[in-house]
């Protein structure tokens, strides 16, 4: 059924259709609307039987999900940013124990300085935690990926993180096609755990593992993720058969035929990039887009196949490996091993900095001329950066950086970037 609803609401309704049995919630922007909506459904009895637990921290949220999942229940939670870091130990633990929890991450920057707006620093900080990580381009895909996430996670006994851009998607009202309960039931079988806490068949879960087997346990976690690379396209195909639309998969190429320049990105910014590419195509530029839906496991072969014919690759990412450059671009580079092409890393949109068509157009034109630095920070305000650097040279006690920069900018209303 077509609906014009908020992204968070769409995700909540999709999660409800998956018949979760335990949901734990701790408020953090911008994911709050998702668990609020689910809490309302449980309270009203429209989502039943289901336990909705208001926990005291994100660490507890993931821990409750761990307990519930180990006891055989389909478990769900949502978080963002600091919340994801606060639960980090339990995030690794859920993966290590092989518990197929599904979690929405409404992507948001990590402090300090505290910032509630969107970038991908949170999810990418936990890229090696052992979770499958899917990135949604729009609200329809966010909704669909949740349904696929339960199927995938439960088949592999691995937790799945569905990442959607905070505010840009979570708070955007878009048209979505909401599936029916019958469709979801046809796609998603009841959860049949591989391991479960049961007095009828007592097992110990979470024993200490020494050097004699630790490597092997970790290898199996890797091997399972590699299996996901095969399962995800198959599940996307099945999804299309039942729901009638393309959603999920590993990567998506857009106008890459004969493209000399291919832009790689994840999440909602792909929409803006595609608009720019459309305009540039009209004026004869050979440019295309490779959108990455699956970040972990990283689809090396699909990325390589998608980029092979290009002369240059521009990886535009909302994340940063401090002291190195990009995170996504480092992964992409591994996919291009042995291929000779220009590779550019563009860090953009950190902490919610708007990524505009105007800036992208300029950037891509420069890329085509190979006039880009290897690492570019899009729309960086060099004036305040340099002022701070000078201040630090001049005074030992130069003060807190963020506050200095804000003072340099002065009172800000809406800015045009």
């Amino acid at each position, binding site marked *: 059924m077509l609906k014009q609803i908020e992204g968070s609401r769409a995700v909540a309704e999709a999660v409800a259709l998956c018949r979760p049995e335990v949901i734990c919630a701790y408020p953090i922007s911008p994911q709050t609307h998702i668990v609020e909506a689910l809490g309302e459904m449980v309270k009203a009895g429209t989502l039943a039987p289901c336990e909705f637990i208001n926990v005291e921290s994100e*660490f507890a949220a993931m821990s*409750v999900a761990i307990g519930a999942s180990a006891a055989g229940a389909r478990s769900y939670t949502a978080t963002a940013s600091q919340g994801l870091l606060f639960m980090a130990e339990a995030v690794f633990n859920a993966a290590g124990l092989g518990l197929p929890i599904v979690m929405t991450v409404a992507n948001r920057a990590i402090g300090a300085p505290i910032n509630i707006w969107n970038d991908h620093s949170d999810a990418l900080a936990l890229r090696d935690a052992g979770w499958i990580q899917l990135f949604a381009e729009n609200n329809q895909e966010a909704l669909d990926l949740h349904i696929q996430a339960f199927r995938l996670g439960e088949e592999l006994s691995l937790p799945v993180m569905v990442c959607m851009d905070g505010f840009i998607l979570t708070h955007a009202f878009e048209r979505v096609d909401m599936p029916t309960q019958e469709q979801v039931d046809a796609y998603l079988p009841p959860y049949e755990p591989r391991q479960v806490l049961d007095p009828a068949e007592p097992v110990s879960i979470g024993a200490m593992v020494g050097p004699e087997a630790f490597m092997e346990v970790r290898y199996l976690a890797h091997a399972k993720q590699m299996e996901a690379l095969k399962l995800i396209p198959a599940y996307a195909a099945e999804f299309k058969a039942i729901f009638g639309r393309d959603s999920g998969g590993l990567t998506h190429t857009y106008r890459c035929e004969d493209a000399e320049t291919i832009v790689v990105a994840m999440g909602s910014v792909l929409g803006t990039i595609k608009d720019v590419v459309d305009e540039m195509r009209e004026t004869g530029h050979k440019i295309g887009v490779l959108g990455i839906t699956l970040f972990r496991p990283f689809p090396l072969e699909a990325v390589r196949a998608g980029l092979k014919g290009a002369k240059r690759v521009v990886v535009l990412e909302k994340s940063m490996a401090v002291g190195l450059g990009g995170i996504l671009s480092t992964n992409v580079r591994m996919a291009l091993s042995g291929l000779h092409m220009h590779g550019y890393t563009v860090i953009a949109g950190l902490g919610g900095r708007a990524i505009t068509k105007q800036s992208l157009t300029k950037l891509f034109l420069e890329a085509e001329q190979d006039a880009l630095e290897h690492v570019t920070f899009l729309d960086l305000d060099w004036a305040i950066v340099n002022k701070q650097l000078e201040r630090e040279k001049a005074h030992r006690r130069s003060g807190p950086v963020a506050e200095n920069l804000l003072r340099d900018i002065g009172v800000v209303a809406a800015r045009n970037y």
Partner: protein
Amino acid sequence: MSYQPIKFYQTGTFTVGNRLLPPEQRSVQAQQKRYNSLNSGHRACQGCGEALGARYAIDAAMEATNGRLICANATGCLEVFSTPYPETSWQVPWIHSLFGNTAAVATGIAAALKVKMQKGERRHIRVVAQGGDGGTTDIGFGCLSGMFERNDDVLFICYDNGGYMNTGIQRSSATPPAARTATTPAVGETPGNVFGQGKFVPAIALAHDIPYVATATVADLRDLEAKVRRAMELSGARYLHILVPCPLGWGFASHETIKMARLAKETGLFPVFEAEHGEITAVLPIRHPLPVEEYLKPQKRFAHLFAPRLRTDVLTRLQALADRNIQRYGLLEKP
């Protein structure tokens, strides 16, 4: 043949064996059909109080639930010595997740079981969470308090040996004042753990107004078992804090574990009581009041209070703590 009359309750407790008692007074632990939930062969130290406490408590919980029990366990001695895989000593479904999240994991299990029961997929199963004092009063305290205030259907058992014994005897917030640990060494003018710090989590549990809070020691088996049984009769958040002496960390002979627990209780340093819905309902009275020295002297962690010079100043402060417990909880038997 000479006749020796048997005097029951010689030391004020049930020191006679089960076979001399009527069936209803027999302990779970002394019965042949006990569950052995924490089975033999584990790797606890000789004389480990925690191993005793855990076996007593979980066997009693198994008895009370007809074996329909799931345990969540914090990281720590109990977790490490019981599951050096491929050997596990647990004959109950058991999960270890992390150090600080055991109460929350148990909440999740209880929530899952509730839904599964509503769906008719599972019969009634109860949940016990357990950890040491570090996993309870320090790193696990946030999750514990959360579980309490939500009144989740979990019995949390803290096995209190007054420190981080698994990592080499460091101070926790349950380490008593003046005790020597690796991080409160017996050096300087005020050797050992500082006064005026630390917390008594049973009192904090009481302040949550949860259905059941009790303390116990491994010295009073029947009292401990009765408290587990009572806890399992109730629903909601329940807390049992068991004093489990540690021969290694405290520095006493490994055959004196029970004695140490009894001395802690008899001196008043560890109050043994029971409370329902925030109100204390019973205490285990001190039968033979003893000065705190009796408890402190056999333990190497307090050796610096007796040599090279007798620290009467410190002993007086410790005695004052015991006296305050006796006063606060009414521990002296009414004449």
